[in-house]
């Protein structure tokens, strides 16, 4: 842009500065205050929690559950939103160490690179609990326990329900699968669990499996092609509710009735998914619950008292059929 030469450099600098401030301002607004003085020793437990971010309804429900459970359990919670950045999370954990909180809990943004900061927490004598996601540290003594969903089990529960439903089927049952984002742990594990479960019946066959990137638009677009390429689809297994919801539209557009012509199984049990299940458009959902707050507070009390806890604890989860969804729907929080 040669003609701009006449403009002063100051203007450009000011604009860049303004833009940086804008970006910084947007990024900063979810950050809660993690500063402040140390904790007094009055027997009350103080927990420092660093959340991944607020990227989905699931995550928001997770945050609310932790905040509510802390209030209910009388635990003082210092909450920090890491905005999907590991450095924010490390900074927050170091803050918690300085403030001498009783327990540190966090959902790691990524798996690796935690050894140093976890070592610092250990040296300070503060127990660490991982939630929802794990870390790949070789030294397992760096954290007390990992509380989170077992994705393989979720896939397995979905598969087992199908095996039970189709045990009388004499002919082949054609299954199509909508995978989550390629390479993501939930996608890999749910696929694995489901495949293991349906191996029990040789009639059950996955005839097509594609990624829908965990999104409605992705699920819909892939399902449209599945329907055109395969005249006989009996079952759809989607790795999350959203892809299933997208696929619903494709199935309806193809002139088929979701839930009847095609049995639909999904994982997650978010509100929109539960609504579809209650309406009979879905047939079965294996829950992946974000509501691990109460379990986390229990664990915090236990580790504070010096009790031994198992190294791996699964979130309490269930499965839903259409009837159960109708009952559970009015109280669904997310």
């Amino acid at each position, binding site marked *: *842009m*040669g*003609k*701009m030469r006449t*403009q002063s450099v100051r*203007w*450009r600098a000011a*604009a*860049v500065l303004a*833009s940086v401030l*804008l*970006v910084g301002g*947007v*990024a900063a*607004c979810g950050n809660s205050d993690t500063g402040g003085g140390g904790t007094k020793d009055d027997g009350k437990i103080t927990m420092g929690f660093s959340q991944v971010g*607020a*990227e*989905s*309804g699931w*995550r*928001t429900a997770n945050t609310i559950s932790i905040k509510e459970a802390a209030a209910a359990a009388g635990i003082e919670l210092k909450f920090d939103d890491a905005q999907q950045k590991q450095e924010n999370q490390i900074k927050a954990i170091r803050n918690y160490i300085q403030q001498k909180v009783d327990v540190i809990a966090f959902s790691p943004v990524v798996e690796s690179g935690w050894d140093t900061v976890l070592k610092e927490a250990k040296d300070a004598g503060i127990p660490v609990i991982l939630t929802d996601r794990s870390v790949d540290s070789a030294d397992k003594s760096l954290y007390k326990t990992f509380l989170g969903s077992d994705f393989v089990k979720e896939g397995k529960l979905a598969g087992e329900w199908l095996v039970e439903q189709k045990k009388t089927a004499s002919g082949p049952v054609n299954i199509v699968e909508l*995978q989550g984002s*390629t390479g993501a742990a939930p996608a890999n594990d749910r696929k694995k669990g489901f495949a293991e479960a349906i191996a029990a019946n040789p009639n059950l066959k996955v005839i*097509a*499996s*594609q*990624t829908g*990137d*965990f*999104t*409605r*638009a*992705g699920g*819909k*677009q*892939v399902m*449209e*092609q*599945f329907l*055109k*390429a395969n005249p006989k689809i009996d079952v759809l297994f989607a790795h999350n509710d*959203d892809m299933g*919801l*997208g696929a619903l*539209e494709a199935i309806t*557009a*193809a*002139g088929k009735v979701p839930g009847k012509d095609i049995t639909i199984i999904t994982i997650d049990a978010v509100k*929109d998914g539960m609504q579809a299940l209650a309406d009979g458009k879905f047939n079965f959902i294996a829950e992946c619950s974000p509501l691990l707050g109460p379990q986390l507070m229990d664990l915090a009390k236990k580790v504070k008292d010096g009790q031994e806890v198992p190294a791996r604890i699964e979130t309490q989860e269930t499965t839903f059929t259409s009837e159960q969804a109708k009952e559970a729907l009015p109280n669904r929080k997310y």
Partner: protein
Amino acid sequence: MNDTMSRYRTMIGHRLFWPAAVLFVMLAANTIYRPGFLSIELKDGHLYGTPIDILRLSAPLILVALGMTLVISTGGIDLSVGSLCAISGAIACMYISKQPDQNSLGVVVTALAMALGVSLVLGAWNGVLVAVIGIQPIIATLILMVAGRGLAQLITEGQIITINSEPYRAIGLGHALTLPLAIFIALAAALLVAAFTRRTALGMIIESVGGNAMASRLAGIRSGRVIFLVYVISAACAAVAGFMMTANVSSADGNAAGLWVELDAILAVVIGGTSLAGGRFFLSGTIIGALIIQTLTTTVYAMDISPQTSLLFKAVVVIAVCLIQAPAFRARFSRRRRNAPPPATIVDKPKEQVPA
């Protein structure tokens, strides 16, 4: 004999020949893989089949790529279009979801007007950064690409907003004359842009600004205004594409709507023969480019290529398309085969000057 030969030369010399040939080969390969690929049937009073899906799904990309074509032809680039899609969809869906009667036409029109208005303001922001303040386009639009997605999530409060509005749904899924409404909207936008750029002097002015902004200014063209204008047009195109994307699934997902569409759009523009250095543009090429990209995506699903290999498959096809499109590569390839330089291609397409 000589006559057919020269006609053949003219045909392969045409800038749309190679993109069209690629599209044809892709459709043919799909048809060989599954003979029913191109079949279309009438269902519920409208056409139904994979080609219709490709048309409908490529409509948002065509829109975004149209705006991108104009921006690129001024020598710029607009990375913020994906975030703009998310913002416009989020505003429209959020407003509709808050209304008591979501099916009211008035509500939908208000929602669209609001979302479009905000998008135009954001487009103007890009335009001011580039044209008035003189920031490099890639940096100027990067700001909104990053911040815009955060903005979209602030609007939706991090949730997926589901709506139940028939008029809004029609933007993505409605039909007219048995064909998807979305493709008519994209086509109308394309005709509008073509009319404004090719029936008036605007297109030539844009190209001259892209060729050399300083020289154009000295020749009496207000380069700054033209550059500002193309970013606003690009934002408007992205906004309408955002409506289509969200209407397609009746929900706004601030996180996923329009994700990476800016890259697809740039690719469509390049495949269509528009130079990234600016100075010339081909709207029809861009449309074919967008169709190629959507056909490629659909091919992956239709052939059920495993997700692990599909990215590699796409990369190989894209590289092949870009090489075929490059006159220098074609010239070298045909020289090796025929052992003589083909005069037509080299004379037709002189090597472009990239301004330093």
